[in-house]
């Protein structure tokens, strides 16, 4: 077994890992090591060949691979070391990574670690969709990989369940490949992805969106022949009288992402029940000292630009930790999800001179609301929004130095 040491080890070379690795170098870490199980950098962005990336970060519209390439080039320039085709099997006691690759098994002893493993997709099994078990039921991300990277078409007539971003982007992608898209079915009474994706991916292609409906059953074997779609009641239970058979040969599922935290869980890192990601403080440090976390493994992001910014902070703090320069004595102020807020990340602020960014999502769509942050004694920040949407993450950057209250609460209040 080969054993190595490094200052900062980063797991995953998606946009999160790439940004974290570069900023760790910039913050002074000597040896930064990025480990990626794929043979190429970029993570999920490799298969996102559509434009729409970088509007916030670069003020330019890039494709996924272009966006990732910029961060990869930067990391290479900064002297980050890469191991591709290498899977981290476990994070062992003392922040040691056990890695497996065709070159062998190795242990990497890191002073600090950044988790950037991304997420996986929810499946048919999670949703408990009844019926037959044929070929032709596939998650949207897997389909995207097959079509855009492996040159494989996954069906001829597709129904999409879930109005998340990936589902809508795949609707357009399939249509551009000449595949019939019967429609997008969404159980909620509102869109779950970004509005801009509905306009660009569904409306522009006349792909119908069916809200408050779900798929109740799959029919056909050995290949999908039809799915049954029904309206749902207030409790999201299907109204069977409304069930309708829709012919198709493929059911594409875009029904949510789950942060990929097997490694974290086995390393004893505390996880948040709502986000599925590690509980972190505003340094993006997890409950295990020296392990930091960013990107989709922390909480599912819709815009990669947010991921890059957040990950730079994680990388910087991981470097400071490795150098023994990350202050650990600052006052801790818990952050609470208040009215109409589903979660806030981070869940604790470390009070320092600078600012902290709080990321959060609302529980349901609303128009004309005030986003309000209070520290228990006073409102420390407030902004009016024309509308908010669970599919669009909110990010608020507040100075933390003069927070006095025992805890911070974010509320979204009707005007």
């Amino acid at each position, binding site marked *: *077994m080969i054993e190595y040491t490094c200052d900062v080890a980063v797991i995953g070379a998606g946009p999160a890992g790439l940004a974290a690795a570069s900023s760790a170098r910039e913050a002074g870490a000597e040896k930064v090591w990025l480990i990626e*199980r794929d043979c190429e950098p970029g993570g999920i962005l490799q298969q996102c060949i559509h434009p729409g990336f970088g509007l916030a970060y670069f003020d330019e519209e890039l494709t996924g691979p272009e966006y990732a390439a910029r961060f990869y080039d930067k990391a290479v320039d900064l002297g980050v070391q890469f191991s591709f*085709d290498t*899977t981290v*099997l476990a994070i062992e006691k003392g922040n040691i990574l056990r890695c*497996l*690759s*065709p*070159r*062998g*098994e190795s242990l990497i002893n890191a002073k600090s670690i950044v988790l950037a493993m991304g997420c*996986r*997709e929810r*499946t*048919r*099994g*999670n949703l*408990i969709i*009844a*019926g*037959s*078990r*044929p*070929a*032709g039921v*596939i*998650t949207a*991300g*897997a389909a995207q*990989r*097959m*079509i855009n990277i*492996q*040159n*494989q*078409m*996954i*069906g*001829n007539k597709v129904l999409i369940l879930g109005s998340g971003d990936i589902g809508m982007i795949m609707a357009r992608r399939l249509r551009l*490949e000449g595949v019939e898209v019967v429609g997008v079915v969404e159980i909620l009474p509102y869109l779950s992805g970004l509005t801009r994706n509905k306009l660009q991916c569904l409306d522009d292609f006349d792909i119908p969106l069916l809200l408050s409906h779900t798929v*109740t*059953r799959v029919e056909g*074997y*050995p*290949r999908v022949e039809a799915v049954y779609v029904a309206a749902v009641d207030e409790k999201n239970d299907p109204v069977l009288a409304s069930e309708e058979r829709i012919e198709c*040969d493929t059911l594409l599922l875009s029904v949510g992402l789950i942060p990929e935290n*097997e490694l974290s*869980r086995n390393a004893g890192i505390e996880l948040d029940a709502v986000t599925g990601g590690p509980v972190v403080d505003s340094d993006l440090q997890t409950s295990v000292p020296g392990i930091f976390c960013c990107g989709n493994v922390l909480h599912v992001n819709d815009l990669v630009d947010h991921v890059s910014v957040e990950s730079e902070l994680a990388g910087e703090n991981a470097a400071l930790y490795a150098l023994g320069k990350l202050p650990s004595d600052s006052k801790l102020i818990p952050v609470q999800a208040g009215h109409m807020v589903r979660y806030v990340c981070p869940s604790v602020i470390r009070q320092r001179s600078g600012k902290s960014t709080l990321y959060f999502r609302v529980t349901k769509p609303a128009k004309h609301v005030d986003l309000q942050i209070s520290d228990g004694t006073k409102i420390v920040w407030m902004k009016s929004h024309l509308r908010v949407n669970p599919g669009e993450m909110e990010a608020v950057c507040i100075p933390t130095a003069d927070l006095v209250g025992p805890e911070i609460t974010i509320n979204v209040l009707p005007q």
Partner: protein
Amino acid sequence: MKRTSVLIIGAGAVGCAIARELSKYDLEVTFLDKNTDVGGDASKSNSSIIHTGYDASPGTLESRLVVAANPMYDRLCKSLDVPFQRIGAILPAFNEEQFEQLPFIKEKAFQNGVYDVEYRSGEDLLNMEPMLNPRVMGGLFIPRESIIDPFVYVVALAENAVQNGAKLILEAKVLDLIREGDAIVGVKTTKGEFLANWIINASGLYCEEIARMAGKADYKVNPRRGQFYILDRDTPCKVKRIVLPIPTKRTKGKLISPMIHGNLLLGPTAEDLSDKTNHDTSTEGLASVAADVRRLVPDIRIGDTITQFSGLRPNRVPAGFNIDVYDDLAGYLNISGVRSTGLTASIAIGKYVAHTLGQVGLEMRLRDDFNPVRKGIQRMVDLSPGQRARKITEDPSYGRIICRCESVTEGEIIEAIRSPIPARSIDAIKRRLRAGMGRCQGGFCGPKVIQILARELGLTDDAVIKSDPGSNPVVRATRKEVSQ
């Protein structure tokens, strides 16, 4: 045409156990199946329990075979490299009515020769299984109820039979039997005709159809569906032993069982259907599983389910295991009614069939070169770091993880594709290695497995199948030419 000594129809648990048993003798053995892989139908969708037979009907053939089979599994699984664990079962009573049944169930167990069933108090049971419904009044402990990997079990039987000279023919559906006077002498299949001195009907759910071809269908068989949930390994509410409900006249009821690789199994239902191809799950059926198992363990988390499936029991009317040879029809042995305990009984059925064939005059000479040992694919995760390093040095593909949920490497997948009974579909790989059986259900490894299968088998991507012909995940290439 060449004539083999014995031809077995069906490569499920029963057919494969017979093939392996007969391969110990100086016989030419052929076993065939309509499917693309061994593994059967019911044999790959069941509760994966090796029963003791405590609740069988005393005196029946089923009782004798199941009771005899259970103790064989320790040695068999060691010799065939099959995951098997004696975890034991409990049968808790939650009300007076159930409680009053316990002595009768224990008496029945005794009549079946299962002497080690013991009474346990409610307190004892809660100590054994803290998640159990606290209203438990007492119950039975059945120490030898066990769990197995049913896929690997059937593959292992078949591989060992093939290693010892048995011939396997897949994708050969029997369309008719060939008769000569008072004897059955062969089968007509979709792959041509095959002649044999003895034809054995081990076709499970279809045992009525085959028997009719022989003119011996004096019974009816309908499918009795059982639906299940599988829960994630990390679900917080688990049990260490099989938790059985007090059985009713119709079924053993819906149970909770640990699975051999750490998941939890809930089910099955018992629904009489008529369509033998209906492997659907239904919303109502699954809901009834959820409701019933919560009576045993109230905090069970259905939300942690990673998949659901159903299996079809061959429900014979009149009921019961039957293994028949006929005075007026030579060369034909019929097996029928192997319904709810056939995974367990399979190994004993193999021996029973060999014995029967001997009695009706087939010359049964033991070979001296039979090799009882079959080695499975060594899982990288189970090896020591030193062993892993050696394997990777020999072949670097053992260092590349393809299925992240179950940690399956490319090397292992290639080994399955090149094994004695080659895995030629996504499901065949899944059943041998668990790739795609974990919590992401193949979302990550599925696309990669398609590429590996295509490469290793020399197929285009759109020729790779999930399970049966026509189950191709890829319908065509997106672009005709890819310029590199």
